[in-house]
């Protein structure tokens, strides 16, 4: 311990003369997604530029959320930077737990951040987290299977078309499922997917007085549609499939269509991992003609918890990791298809990036999402696949568990909705909304 500490001090001293400011070691909690893992690989570039070193705490999404939430609410102060999402940022920002990112350097060009992302990561107009990458959701489909079924995917399909195509493409003998969708419990997994689907069917979580709306016909229609579609054209055991399970299935050529995060486009078109890399087409997430598409908006972003001793170094890191230079660095080494997408306008104006097959569709999907106006009917909340109130994660996890049980055939759709209605109202009562 002692020798390591003194060694560290020696390194810091050495860097003091090379670097511009005092060299520090910052601790960053992050999620184990591919883009974040890639960022860790480039840490040396950051250290070379600033002299600061980085300690990574990489955790699986659920564990990360649990860890950082406990840390921020108990003022644990273990991290100088936390990787959080669009759900947490405005809530934490409102509580004064995050350091405002309102004094970023001119070179960083904060106005270049996509307006949708900037809006979702702000509270009262102040940016509290910088997007590392952003996503919406869209349809990814197998061009060969679609052609074989004698159909053509429109750029903006309806759910009706998706259902027809899915049933036509399904070939159980050969292990091909028409459509793979999330059914896994968890508010960020199947909960997110069914919420956006319901949005496109005209449903909403709450009415203007915060009454749960699961007893309304739109929810029943959306859920019955989903269950019927998956029974006919979905993979076996879809009630436990989340993003990752579906990604595996699609990469192995077992799905005709997959409606999920736009970031998945770079994984399914990567020939190293995907057996169908050259046969993937893209389209906007489907709708039912009511005016809302079933696509969400999300960003994984970097935020600095208030109370850190290393604010300056943490800001330097955020400026490095979410900068235009970082994108170029990745592009130079791994190709444009592998850069973190969905965060900056300039990326989509770059002619090199426009050649990437999914670039335009990703941007269109992100632009089609409007967190401040997510549903057909008016709602008192902000957020598309989530409701930006602290109680939502707990409620939606339980609701999605009831839904998953319905997907697995352990209860009917009506029973699931009934329980969802009761538990949501109960939790909202406990929180003092009703």
């Amino acid at each position, binding site marked *: 311990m002692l020798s390591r500490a003194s060694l560290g001090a020696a390194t810091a001293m050495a860097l003091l003369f090379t670097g511009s400011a005092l060299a520090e070691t910052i601790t960053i909690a992050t999620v184990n*997604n*591919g883009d974040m893992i890639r960022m860790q690989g480039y840490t040396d570039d950051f250290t070379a530029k600033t002299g600061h070193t980085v300690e990574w705490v990489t955790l699986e999404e659920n*564990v990360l959320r649990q860890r950082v939430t406990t840390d921020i609410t108990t003022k644990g*102060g273990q991290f100088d930077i936390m990787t959080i999402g669009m759900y947490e940022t405005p809530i934490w920002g409102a509580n004064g737990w995050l350091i405002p990112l309102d004094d970023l350097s001119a070179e960083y060009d904060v106005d270049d951040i996509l307006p949708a992302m900037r809006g979702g990561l702000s509270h009262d107009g102040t940016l509290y987290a910088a997007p590392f990458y952003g996503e919406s959701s869209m349809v990814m489909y197998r061009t060969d299977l679609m052609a074989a079924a004698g159909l053509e995917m429109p750029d903006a399909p309806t759910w009706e078309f998706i259902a027809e195509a899915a049933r036509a493409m399904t070939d159980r003998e050969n292990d091909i499922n028409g459509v793979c969708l999330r059914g896994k419990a968890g508010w960020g997994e199947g909960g997110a997917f069914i919420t956006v689907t319901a949005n496109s069917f005209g449903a909403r979580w709450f009415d203007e007085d915060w009454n749960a709306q699961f007893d309304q016909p739109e929810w029943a229609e959306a859920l019955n549609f989903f269950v019927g579609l998956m029974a006919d054209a979905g993979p076996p055991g879809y009630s436990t499939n*989340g993003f*990752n399970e579906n990604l595996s299935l699609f990469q192995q050529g077992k799905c005709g269509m997959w409606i999920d995060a736009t970031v998945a486009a770079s994984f399914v078109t990567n020939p190293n991992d995907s057996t169908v890399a050259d046969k993937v087409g893209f389209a906007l997430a489907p709708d039912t003609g009511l005016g809302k598409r079933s696509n969400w908006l999300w960003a994984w972003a970097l935020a600095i918890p208030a109370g850190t001793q290393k604010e300056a170094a943490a800001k330097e890191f955020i400026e490095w990791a979410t900068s235009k230079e970082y994108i170029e660095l990745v592009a130079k080494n791994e190709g444009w298809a592998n850069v973190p997408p969905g965060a900056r306008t300039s990326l989509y104006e770059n002619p090199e990036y426009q050649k990437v097959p999914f670039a335009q569709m990703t941007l269109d999907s992100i632009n089609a999402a409007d967190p401040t106006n997510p549903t057909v009917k008016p709602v008192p909340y902000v957020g598309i696949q989530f409701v930006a109130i602290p109680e939502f994660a707990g409620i939606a996890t339980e609701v999605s568990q009831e839904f998953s049980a319905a997907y697995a055939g352990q209860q009917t759709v009506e029973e699931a909705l009934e329980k969802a209605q009761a538990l949501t109202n109960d939790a909202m009562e406990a929180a003092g909304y009703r």
Partner: protein
Amino acid sequence: MARAVTTRRKVITTAAAWAIGLLIFFPIYWTILTSFKTEAQAINDPPLFFAFNWTLENYAIVQERSDYMRFLWNSVILAGGSTVLGILVAVPAAWSMAFVPSKRTKDILLWMLSTKMLPAVGVLYPISLLFVQFNLLDTRIGLVMVLMLINLPIIVWMLYTYFKEIPGEILEAARMDGATLKEEILYILTPMAVPGIASTILLNFILAWNEAFWTLNLTAAQSAPLTAFIASYSSPEGLFFAKLSAASTMAIAPILILGWFSQKQLVRGLTFGAVK
């Protein structure tokens, strides 16, 4: 066993025992095997048993992503430290319970066990707040204390049952010869109880090594052990069976090897006073 055993019977027993043994061990075997496959081979249907190109690629990837040795070292310190500390506290307690029993001894033992009944997650906030208060977050000493306290009841109980098996007359004889309490424990009791203490140490080392709630929630970068290492491999993107297998193998290998070498000790020692 003094009984004569026919060869036929021995053959049948051998076959049955090996079949069951291999069946129980199969998940671990399969994990280790998969860690040497490519991702595509890992999900091949039919499953590949031997005929594939063995590769160390997954280990290289895992090592590149996370500094294995640091996690391993923390695991060793946490498990070792908490066990040593636990033994130091438990030996005197178990000694006095075994040799100077009172009416309440049994109650105290059961009470100690009952401290394990509060679910960890129920006290997540209390413990976290205390750790923040005393600046113990992400320190090894804080976690060593927690792990020691979690396992202390088991340590005390195991030692108590071993000590009880030591005949009291020996101690009395030593006392007659003028041995002090300290000498009694150091030179007479301890040597006789070595097998028991050894298996207690083993069991607690294993329990502390595998503890995955507090070691995840109270650590960050400095003191995170292998349970945190594995928490970054549970659901990455795309195919991951081979990488998961490599990370799993790395996480369990040290304790598995330790367990195998001390298997005899464990079999002999893990009685909890169950024999008599």
